[in-house]
């Protein structure tokens, strides 16, 4: 009995850990698309964030500094996307694709320069702290490896992610700025006639999406694992994007979709650790397959913000 409870605790814990990077990134997706700009460059931004986070954490031995710089790195690519799409009215998908190449390419390039030609960083000295251990001392609040410990004794980035879901929800639905973001994403002409600056709002939203994608990458490289490698992100940015769509462009919905994927991942790891006689490759498919089936089967019709992906031309010709 105790065994089963512990196993459940293990699955829940890994679920939380693996959903976290996705949650950050899909929050970024929610913010930018709600303002009307498609950002499929999330993958590249996440990639770059993962590298910057790990590299800074390696050299400074501070995971927090790593996290901060990852956010800034993501913001840089967000800015590039904003300049292309908002100022120059570039095709948003094309700019996103370019950013995916650019993000990955520059991460690998800088990695080779700093780490003797390797496309991965060295192991960072300090991972993200575990806030419960930090506050109460190791094993003091909950007995080590008990159910509660397995579930709640998680990295600071995990706690921060869920807090961010709340913050983004609050800002988007309850505040002045959030209302303007949603209005700009639905009907920029209307917002413009009321003196809301479509350009400013979209710049902020796109840059913020970069910040969140950068955080998502770092949540992977300095918490889930302890180094950046070239296969670390492989598709997580796109999954986050899908989660945003399945979550109907809402922060809480995106979070649920990410948790679902994380749960499938947790299950995969659990089965793997139990030595179930299923080939590893098949197990690795599991999260993707499960997510797809559940989401396609159970999530109803989704509708994107009215003006998403459309060019807003202020001059009227």
């Amino acid at each position: 009995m105790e065994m089963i409870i512990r196993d459940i605790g293990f699955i829940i814990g890994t679920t939380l850990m693996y959903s976290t990077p996705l949650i950050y990134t899909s929050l970024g997706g929610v913010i930018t698309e709600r303002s009307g700009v498609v950002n499929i460059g999330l993958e590249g931004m996440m990639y770059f964030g993962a590298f910057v986070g790990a590299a800074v954490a390696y050299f400074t031995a501070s995971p927090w500094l790593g996290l901060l710089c990852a956010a800034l790195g993501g913001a840089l690519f967000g800015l590039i996307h904003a300049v292309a799409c908002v100022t120059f009215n570039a095709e948003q998908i094309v700019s996103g694709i370019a950013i995916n190449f650019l993000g990955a390419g520059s991460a690998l390039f800088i990695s080779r320069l700093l780490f003797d030609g390797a496309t991965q960083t060295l192991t960072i000295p300090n991972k993200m702290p575990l806030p419960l251990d930090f506050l109460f001392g190791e094993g003091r609040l909950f007995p080590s490896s008990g159910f509660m410990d397995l579930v709640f004794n998680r990295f600071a980035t995990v706690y921060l992610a869920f807090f961010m879901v709340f913050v983004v929800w609050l800002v988007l639905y309850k505040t002045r700025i959030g209302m303007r973001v949603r209005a700009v994403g639905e009907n920029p002409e209307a917002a413009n006639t009321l003196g809301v600056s479509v350009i400013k709002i979209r710049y902020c939203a796109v840059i913020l999406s970069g910040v969140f994608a950068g955080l998502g990458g770092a949540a992977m490289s300095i918490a889930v694992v302890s180094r950046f490698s070239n296969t670390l992100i492989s598709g997580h940015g796109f999954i986050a994007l899908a989660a945003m769509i399945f979550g109907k462009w809402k922060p809480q919905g995106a979070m649920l979709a990410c948790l679902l994927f994380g749960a499938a991942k947790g299950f995969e790891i659990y089965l793997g650790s139990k030595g179930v006689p299923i080939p590893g490759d098949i197990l690795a498919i599991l999260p993707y397959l499960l997510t797809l089936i559940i989401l396609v089967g159970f999530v109803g019709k989704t509708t994107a913000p009215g003006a998403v992906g459309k060019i807003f031309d202020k001059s009227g010709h």
Partner: protein
Amino acid sequence: MIDITKKFGDVVANNHISLTIHKGEVHALLGENGAGKTTLMNVLYGLYRPTTGTIRINGKAVSIRSPNVAISNGIGMVHQHFMLVEPFSVTENIILGNEPTRAGGIVDMVSAEADVMRLSQEYGLSVDPKALIEDLSVGSQQRVEILKTLYRGAEILIFDEPTAVLTPQEIQELVTIIKNLTAAGKSVIIITHKLKEIKQIADFCTIIRRGEHIDTVEVDKVSEEELASMMVGRQVSFKVDKPEQQAGAAVLEIKNLRVVDKRGIAAVNGLNLQLKKGEILGIAGVDGNGQTELIEALTGLARVQAGSIQVNGQELANQTPGTIRTNHKVGHIPEDRQKRGLVFEFDVAENLILSSYNTSRFSTFFILLRAAIYSNAEKLIKLFDIRPANAKITAKSLSGGNQQKMIIAREVSSNPDILIAAQPTRGLDVGAIEYVHQTLVEQRNRGKAVLLISFELDEIMNVSDRIAVIYEGRIVGEIKAKEADEQQLGRLMAGCSL
């Protein structure tokens, strides 16, 4: 506004126009489609920068760089095409850009809703502050637009063709609202093509023709006829010239038609109708009595639940729109020109062949014949007087009335046996209306059949040979147009028997 000029590339939309508005007056702007009325108002509202010219408000020159500047100078605008965020509530739309907040930037919805309530009562603009825009009728949406300007403390309100989309009842409500506004000391600028409305509410009227200021007159001192001829530059006849003509055999027979609307309610329920060669049959009725669904069923855009529609003896119900157009030769001037009538990003020539691009005239072996398409466009532009006369500009940059002319040109030139014309003159100037009516009559004179659906009783009575009244999805009465009088039709439209 002094000496305003606005150019779009080579097109001079406004050419040295001056306009003076006094406090508390209603000032009408009158001009043909494409005369530059909307452009002038967009300049005043800061959506366009004038090429040259100055604007003075209360004697002070202001440079209106953006709507923000206009708003802070007390200018508000109700646009020709509403500027509303559909999934937002009434209150959210009204406060957007001007949100009252509590600590931490949290929007104070409670006080906002109270403000909206207070304003709506003060000026007699009834709306539910919590309702979502997408659930509101066009009339209520317009009231939200008016509230938006009042909420920002507008002293000068601009209305761009506010009545084009309203039902007659809603128009009367709007007239009352405008009277309330001027009684409260506000000034109103109103663009409209309906001379009757100008006579009814405006104090002054400024006439614009092809971007130029023609005259500003006191409305009391001129007649409708004088206004019309000033605007078009020639005499306009309000009566439709129609030779007597005997209608021929029936081309269209509708029997026991039943169509459900989006909510699954039977909007057309047991409708019977017959349309003959060489006649114009007008369908009169209050909006929402099944007109839209009837048109959609006839054109193959909605499913027919029961009953039959026969054209020349052939069943047409539930055929594809394409078959109905080409095989059965049914043309359609749609009610909603922006959604169903044209492709915004296509140019005029392309829009003119939307229903015939696959005929041998315009394509061979899947390749479009550019030369034929553009010479066709040149011809139709001249014939239907579409302005500016340029086949290569996008449909989007045409004025509303010229977009309509383009659609009519396309439909009539495809030479249909039956022409379904839904609100064909909505948003058109009197000159253009005269022209559209003549076109419909010509179709009839050539032995074709025309089904005219309109909310405007005047139009129905002037143009039709026979009038059928639709009420709750059924034809409740048919009258010869010559014998019809307004009272009698009005009673039928309201569901009373004769």
